[in-house]
Each structure stands twice: as structure tokens, then as C-alpha cells.
């Protein structure tokens, strides 16, 4: 086996790495964009909170649970028509982003909800007792207080997205996962498989380290 020393492989590997990074970056940004408000809503509509509503909280909770119950590989397939509708293709980096976001946003929303729930109750009451509106409560108290928890949630979500991008590779998204399948699995080039796994591991390590650092930076407890 010629293995990874061939130029072809290195250029393939660097292209695949960039694709993975692009998928990760794009889907993480959109996951935060949709997941954060969803998590705030999940929290605010739960019992005892300012917008407590059995109907709203039940509905949101059900939708989130439904999306989280569907295995990601199934989501990738059933999302194809919708993905084509949204971004014009179900292939490549662009085609991978909608299912990645739909798969990760509900997960991230739950992490946000949990982080908000951890905010000290008397702190919330104190801010309400100052005469804060719900908007002020969220922006001035809940989000800043929950920031370390939310950043930790972003880290976990980013790492989950890394493994999701590898799965998306199977249905033609490209990236390191795709490479591992095509060369490592289908052509028995174990060295390519090993290199991709090592690169994915490096990526996960980096994300975790950065996340931990940020959490420490934001935490004043």
C-alpha cells in the first residue's frame, strides 16, 4: 500500500480537513443562533418562571425531544428534501449544514436550559425584586450568570458536531469522515483511516481545551 506519503492523499486530507472545519464552523454558528433562543424559551416557559405556560412548554419540549430521539443518521436521510429546498443541494458542505443544525440545536437548547436553571434562585428573585422586566432579567442577569455553563454547552455541542460531520460524510457531505469511509473502510487503506482519526482527535482536543479556558475566563464563582 502506498499510503499517505503520496501527494494525492495529503491534498485530499487537507481538503477534507478544511471541509470538516467549514461544516463545523457554519453549523455551530447556526446551532447557537437557533439553539440559544430556544433554550431561553424552554426555560422561561417552564413552571415557576416568568412565562410559565403548560401548553408552550409542553409543545417546545415535545418538539425538542422528538428531534433528539431521531438518530442523526436517519435525520440526515429524511432531511434531504428539506435541505434541497433550503440550500439548493443535499451534497457537500452546504448540504450538510441544515441537518447538522437541526440535529444539534435541540441538544444545545437543552444545555442552555440547564445552564439557566443553575442560576441561583435568590439572584433571579433579587433582580425581579428590583423591578426588572423579563427582557432585562434575561439580558442583565440570566445570560451573564449562566455564561460559563453556556460556554461549556457550546464546547460539548461543537464536539458532538464533529462526530455528526463525520456521519454526514456518509451521505456525501465530504470532510474527514467521508475520507475515512472511502479510503480507510472501502479501500482498506488503514493508514488513511488512522490519519483522519488522529486529525479528528486533535480537533476535539483543541475544542475542549479552548472551551475549558473560556469557561475559566468567564467564571467568577
Amino acid at each position, binding site marked *: 500500500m502506498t499510503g499517505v506519503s503520496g501527494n494525492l492523499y495529503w491534498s485530499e486530507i487537507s481538503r477534507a480537513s478544511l471541509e470538516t472545519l467549514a461544516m463545523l464552523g457554519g453549523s455551530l454558528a447556526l446551532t447557537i443562533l437557533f439553539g440559544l433562543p430556544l433554550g431561553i424559551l424552554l426555560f422561561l416557559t417552564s413552571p415557576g418562571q416568568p412565562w410559565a405556560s403548560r401548553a408552550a412548554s409542553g409543545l417546545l419540549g415535545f418538539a425538542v425531544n422528538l428531534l433528539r430521539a431521531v438518530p442523526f443518521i436517519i435525520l440526515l436521510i429524511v432531511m434531504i428534501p428539506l435541505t434541497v429546498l433550503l440550500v439548493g443541494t443535499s451534497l457537500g458542505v452546504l448540504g450538510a449544514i441544515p441537518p447538522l443544525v437541526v440535529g444539534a440545536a435541540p441538544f444545545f437548547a437543552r444545555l442552555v436550559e440547564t445552564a439557566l436553571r443553575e442560576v441561583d434562585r435568590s439572584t433571579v*428573585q*433579587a*433582580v425581579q425584586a*428590583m*423591578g426588572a422586566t423579563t427582557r432585562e432579567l434575561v439580558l*442583565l442577569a440570566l445570560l451573564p450568570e449562566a455564561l460559563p455553563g453556556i460556554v461549556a454547552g457550546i464546547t460539548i455541542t461543537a464536539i458532538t458536531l464533529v462526530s455528526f460531520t463525520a456521519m454526514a460524510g456518509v451521505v456525501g457531505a465530504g470532510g474527514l469522515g467521508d475520507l475515512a469511509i472511502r479510503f480507510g473502510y472501502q479501500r482498506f487503506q488503514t493508514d488513511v483511516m488512522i490519519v483522519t482519526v488522529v486529525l479528528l482527535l486533535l480537533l476535539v482536543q483543541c475544542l475542549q481545551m479552548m472551551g475549558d479556558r473560556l469557561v475559566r475566563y468567564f467564571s467568577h464563582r
Partner: protein
Amino acid sequence: MHRVYKHFGPDQPALAGVDLAVTHGEIFGIIGRSGAGKSTLVRLLNGLERADSGTVIVDGVDMADVSGSALRTLRRRVQMIFQNFGLLSSRTVAQNVALPLRIAGADLAGIDGRVADLLHRVGLIDYAGKYPSQLSGGQKQRVGIARALATAPDILLCDEATSALDPETTASILALIADLNRELGLTIIVITHEMDVVRQLCDRVAVLHNGRVVESGLVSDIFFTPAAQETRALLTDAGADGAMGIAFPGRVVHLALEGEALAEPVLTRIARATGVDFTILASRIGHFRAGSVGQFTLGLSGGDQDAALAALADQGRVRE
């Protein structure tokens, strides 16, 4: 507050027909065991909870009628401090104190000066840039107090404000609260489960038990002549009822002396006049906000005991 009920579930109500009137400018205590409904009661006063029935009037405003921005405006006049302080860990001391001002929409230019004044007031000006996690419990509560004062409220609610603090720190926080009452004319409502806090700080007190006010009145009256079983139990916990449980074969009376009577040889004078011998079974000088009260538990033997009792009743308060 009139005939106020509050339920959280189908079983035992948290408040069951509470009647209370707090006078402007006084320090009013609400004491009771954990679960008595104290926090629920005090949260009715700033609209964090709503009564199921009955009326709650705060500073002339019926709490059933206010909501939205009227409620938020009222809350600026009724501030609150908490057992576990409720400070924002993500904000510095100065930013914590500034928060109610920002929420009230205060002029940004004036906020820094106001915050500095408030931190001076509570003795924490050197800690402005620190985070709450870098402060001791007593310092955190001082920040809580500075923050509560930021919007110049008329009423301060203290929910177990000293319960997480050691005795020395508690004393300094209570002294600060008393100062605020004197200097700013703040009406203060103090929630506590500790008789000592009531004794040192309050003018009047209500005893809450299972959501009902079982007794209320002047603090020194409640200490000396507790009518309700629950009050006596709270006093016994605090070692403040003067009954130390020494067995005495004869008649036993409780005597409370205040003011000048404390400085005079009351007992020996009455003993000579009536021929009664007094045995001191327990004694205690209590320092109340209104002044000091000496409490004695006396055993009587020989002589004209009825005459002695009448003479004692002339000097102070007597309970058998």
C-alpha cells in the same frame, strides 16, 4: 395586610388568614419556624407572589391591582435583601450595586457617584472592583444592602438576612440595618427564625405559625408575657424565657423590670416589708431596641406572699 390566604397546593395553605399592619418608619419583625410561611408573606409585599384572597396594601397601593410597569415602579420603593445575598457572581461589587439603577433607567452619568456613595455607606468602597466570590458573607450582605438602597426605597424587606452569618457579623449587619432605619426613616420588615434578631432590632413583632399570626405586639411584651404556645417554644429555643428548670417547692413567679427599677434594690426592699424570702431561680438582662429589661424567675417562701406580689407588680411586670 388583611385576611390574606395563599395556597401552593391542595394541602396545607402557606398563609391562612394573615392580618398585619406595619407602621411607617418602624422595624417590624416576623418570626416563625422554617416553613411557617414567612418568605411567602414577605414576597407578597413586592409582588413576587400574589395572594389567593384577602388584601395586601403596600404604601397605599393594593397589590391585587398592580401589574406590569406599575408593579415594577412599586418594586423600586420596596427593596429586599436575602439570606444567600442574591448577588450576581458575574458582576463586580460596583456593577451589582449599579444594577437596580440601570434597571430603573437612571441617568448613566450619575450612576458611578451614587454607587460610590452607597459603598461608602456600607463601608465597602475599597471593594468596588472585586467579585462577590472574593468577599466574606458579611461583606456580601453589605453589598446586598447597598444594592437595595440604590433606588432610595421607602421599605426594606429582610428575608433571613443574617441567618447565614456568624454571631459577630450578624451583630454588625443588624447595627447597620438599625442605622438605616434611624437615618433614612426606612420602614423595615425583618423575617427571621431567631428571637435574638427580633430582640436586638425590632420594635414590634408578629409570630407566624403554620401560615397564621398566633401573636403580635411590642417585642418586650412578647418576650415577657408570651401568650401563644409557639412563642414560648421559640423563646425556649433562644434560652430567653428565663425558666431554667430549677425545681422549687414553693410559689414561683416571673418578674420583668425596666428602666429605673433595674437600678434599685427592689427585691430586698420588698423582702423587708413583707417578710417574704426570694430565691433567684433564673435571671437575665435582655437588651432590647427600646432599652434593657431584667427578667427574673423567683421562688417565694414565708411572709405575706400576696402583698409581695402586689409590690412587685408596682415595680414591673409579674407573671406566675
